[in-house]
């Protein structure tokens, strides 16, 4: 049973056209993360939500925003996608932040293409 669900699996957008990726979870976890993974590179953390608290990584471009309207859903908004934003976007959750809660549960990812 899928516990972290990302839709769609593949997303195509045009250069400069805003796009939103979605993630939902059935685990009732407090923390939700967005990772960007480019080809042959490590997954890179963009930001995370601890409950409603948003935590942005220092090197995440302003072009990337996120919303978490409730515990179950988290969205990644790319305001003006560039060619360099083509990547796999991974959503993950963890029960909490702290010792013993480090295990991440990942979604299947959304592969974003920018034309």
């Amino acid at each position, binding site marked *: 049973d899928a516990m972290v669900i990302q839709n769609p699996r593949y997303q195509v957008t045009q250069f400069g056209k805003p796009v939103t990726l979605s993630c939902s979870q059935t685990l009732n976890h407090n923390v939700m993360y967005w990772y960007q993974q480019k080809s042959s590179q*490590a997954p890179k*953390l963009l930001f995370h939500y601890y409950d409603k608290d948003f935590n942005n990584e220092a090197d995440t471009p302003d072009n990337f925003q996120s919303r978490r309207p409730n515990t179950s859903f988290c969205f990644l908004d790319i305001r003006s996608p560039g060619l360099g934003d083509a990547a796999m976007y991974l959503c993950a959750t963890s029960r909490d932040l702290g010792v013993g809660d*480090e295990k*991440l549960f*990942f979604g*299947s990812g959304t592969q974003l293409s920018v034309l």
Partner: protein
Amino acid sequence: AQRVTQPEKLLSVFKGAPVELKCNYSYSGSPELFWYVQYSRQRLQLLLRHISRESIKGFTADLNKGETSFHLKKPFAQEEDSAMYYCALLEGSNYKLTFGKGTLLTVNP
């Protein structure tokens, strides 16, 4: 600065052979390290964590602070072990997980 290094992008072994996937880290504090695995067409998932000192699917990993390594080992590889393996480091107080670039393991029959 790169905190997690997986020097081998690709690793190919034969079934029944021992396998070791290398991971080195750079971290000034007390590290917490993990191995994540991604099988073909499946999601990334936790394989094991060093604090648990566990063996999952025959894999073990020992933290060597002197060598700053956390290599993943299995004495007898199986074909179903073929997957992408990521070493990850949890950074202290901000609980940020940093991944290595991954090693693609192929176990040949």
